[in-house]
């Protein structure tokens, strides 16, 4: 039966070519949207590895170029912050603190393997301020910093890329650029997750290293629940009083995170709306065209019925025909879509694309099924006597 349908459509491929092209394009659009959706959803489902509630980020600018002065000022601010009951813990970080727009990355090497990774300089209190969990080893302490190696903590993703299955803790990494000039790094701990760009970030490479005293003038602060603008104003005012040229800005990390999330979400939503309308448009068109074709083939239906085909057979025959047309379009579309995982476009896991394809194929069949059902039912209730009488 199916073979027969294929033969039928193949013989009339010219008259159905427009339908096939439409299916082909719709599939590609759906494939893109589904892949994007799957990719973002998968990333969204992984734990963040950090808490943003009651976390503030302070951007401090000392407006001075002298390094010694900077170190001094930073110490002043630390001393001042320890006096506040509202501030539970705080840590200076490099300017690429979570959910800021700045990034710093570098290549790391281990056994001739080079891997690129985000590098964040933080103080020992950083995991406390960000409520991070260390899964292997420990976080570095003040005492570590004076040792022969620079103690670092890395994400699981980076550990896997560098050392594959081996245990990461205790390994020595030569940093591509600094190995020659400074101390090598020693891994002292591993964290599972650290999503610091948005909730839709894929698991990525991050390396935490002890903060050096001159550059890092961004700060994360964990504050007591319920601290609001009042406390914020007080702290900013009192800190700014310590130095007359300083500018200090405090932002809520929760807000920063939702900003970053919106940057991902808004384009995806706009795309979804546009694609939804496109596909709806195509569905309407298909519906109309099917109506037309079935109208034109009334006699054929009459003959079939007269020869003993049941209503159900007619219904399924027409739905089947449309499904076969869709299949031809899909085969062409899949040929293009399969290139994405094969060529590893955008460096995304193949499973995302495959899942996207699967969803798109299902969506197309459902769409075609819905569009074909009503006209086919109309066809199946035709009375042979009436139809053939028209001649």
């Amino acid at each position, binding site marked *: 039966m199916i073979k027969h349908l294929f033969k039928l459509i193949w013989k009339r491929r010219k008259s159905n070519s*427009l*339908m096939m*092209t*439409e299916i082909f*394009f*719709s599939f590609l*659009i759906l494939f893109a949207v589904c892949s994007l959706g799957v990719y973002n959803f998968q990333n969204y489902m992984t734990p963040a590895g950090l808490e943003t509630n009651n976390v503030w980020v302070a951007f401090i*600018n000392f*407006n001075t*170029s002298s390094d010694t002065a900077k170190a001094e000022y930073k110490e002043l601010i630390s001393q001042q912050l320890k006096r506040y009951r509202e501030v539970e813990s705080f840590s200076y970080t490099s300017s690429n603190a979570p959910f800021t727009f700045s990034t710093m990355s570098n290549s790391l090497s281990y056994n001739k393997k080079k891997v690129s990774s985000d590098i964040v300089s933080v103080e020992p209190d950083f995991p406390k301020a960000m409520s991070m969990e260390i899964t292997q080893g420990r976080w570095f302490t003040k005492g570590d910093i004076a040792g022969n190696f620079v103690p670092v903590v890395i994400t699981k993703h980076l550990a896997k890329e560098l050392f594959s299955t081996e245990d990461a803790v205790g390994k020595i990494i030569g940093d591509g*650029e600094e190995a020659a000039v400074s101390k090598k790094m020693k891994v002292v701990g591993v964290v599972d997750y650290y999503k610091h760009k948005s909730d839709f970030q894929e698991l990525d490479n991050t390396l935490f290293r002890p903060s050096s005293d001159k550059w890092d003038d961004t700060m994360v602060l964990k504050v007591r629940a319920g601290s*609001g*603008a*009042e406390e*914020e*104003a007080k702290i*900013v*005012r009192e800190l*700014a*009083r310590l130095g*007359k*040229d*300083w*500018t*200090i*800005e*405090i932002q809520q990390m929760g807000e920063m995170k939702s900003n970053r999330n919106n940057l991902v979400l808004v384009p995806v939503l706009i795309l979804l709306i*546009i694609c939804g*309308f*496109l596909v709806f*448009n*195509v569905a*309407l*068109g298909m*519906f*109309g*065209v099917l*109506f*037309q*074709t079935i*109208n*034109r083939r009334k006699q054929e239906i009459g003959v079939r019925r007269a020869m003993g085909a049941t209503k159900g057979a007619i219904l399924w025959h027409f739905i089947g025909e449309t499904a076969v047309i869709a299949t031809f379009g899909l085969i062409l579309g899949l040929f293009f879509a399969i290139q994405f995982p094969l060529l590893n476009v955008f460096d995304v896991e193949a499973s995302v694309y495959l899942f996207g394809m699967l969803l798109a194929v299902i969506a197309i069949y459902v769409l075609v099924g819905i569009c074909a059902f009503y006209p086919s039912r109309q066809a199946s209730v035709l009375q042979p006597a009436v139809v053939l009488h028209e001649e």
Partner: protein
Amino acid sequence: MLFNYLKITLAVLKRRKFFTFISLFGISFTLTILVVVTAFFDHLVSAGYPEVNRDNSLYVWNIKEKDTKNGGSSSGPVSFSFINTYIRTLKTPAKVAAVSMFNTINIYLNNHKIKVMYRYTDANFWEVTSFEFLEGKRYTAQNIANNDYVVVINDNVRDQYVGKGQPAVGKMLEVDNVKYRIIGVVKGCPVTRLHTSSDLYFPYNTSKADLKKTRLRGDYMALILPNNPNDKLKLQEEFKAVASKIKPTKTDDKWFNPDKLYVFADTYFVSFTRELKGSGDGDGSTLIISILLGVVLLFMSLPAINLVNVNMSRIMERASEIGVRKAFGASSKTLVMQFVIENIILTLIGGVIALILSSLVIFYINQSNLIAYIDLSFNWKVFSVAILVSLIFGLLSGVYPAWRMSKLQVVDALKY
């Protein structure tokens, strides 16, 4: 005769309501999306308040230093001294304004905070732009020479900080423990005017950063407005000659020691394409435009195929009609004429619907305060091109098969 055609057309459109709906939906919806998207694009690149002279202006804001040996590069805004040294000294007569990149800061006011953008500018900034002052006035070179701590705010900050409709000029505004006297209030502009939008404008003398440093890179952009609009090319050439003599910054860093320097005076749009896709001396504008056009074509292709598909099957349905009319002596020409008129009317109705829809959407976006002060405008150019394209598709897919059919023998047409 035309009136007759009209009557026939409307009768036909009414006869198959569903088909009419499909075609109309396709046309009007596609046009609406296209018009709204291009309105956004237009808003981003065309002149608008307060940059009404954007088309005549040149922008210098990005300087790129490249290390051709190690392959590294670094880029960013130019410094204040760069503008003074290399741009203000250009011979071609022009106004040069220096404005810093925007930064954000919080103003605290009885326990709630207002997050504001601020910029430092020179006095020329107000000459080059056309801000509307609701009250007070701009700061002048004299204010800067006196080292006055003054600030120009926009109406949004005034409403929150001083109160709606209250006079703000002469009041004090405290930022970071420093008090500034409010000297003027301007009508705000949308953040999409990346070089001029801000909530607070400070004269550069109040900046805490050291502006005397002679580094090339800094935090400033230059807006150049030639006195004579025809001097734009001349200015670009002159600046190019100046820029070719600038030496890249010497670093003692063995990993990054730049030996090539790129800095251009570009028109607004090109200054961005260069940033996105330019390489070396290429400005990337053609590439960006082709990408955008490609995306638009891809987006249009699906509704176009759909329109063609629906049209084709409608013509099939009307084969007998054509046959009968031919049998009664209608010529091919009359038949084709009828289908042409039908298609034009259908497209125009779709166009009118799109016009209404997109005006509504644009009105809603302008009203919704999604982006403060946004001022999208309806783009007639794009709208007419889109209508034309849908007409062409309509004619190709509706009229051509009809014409083919009208060439058939009556008997065959009737048999269809």
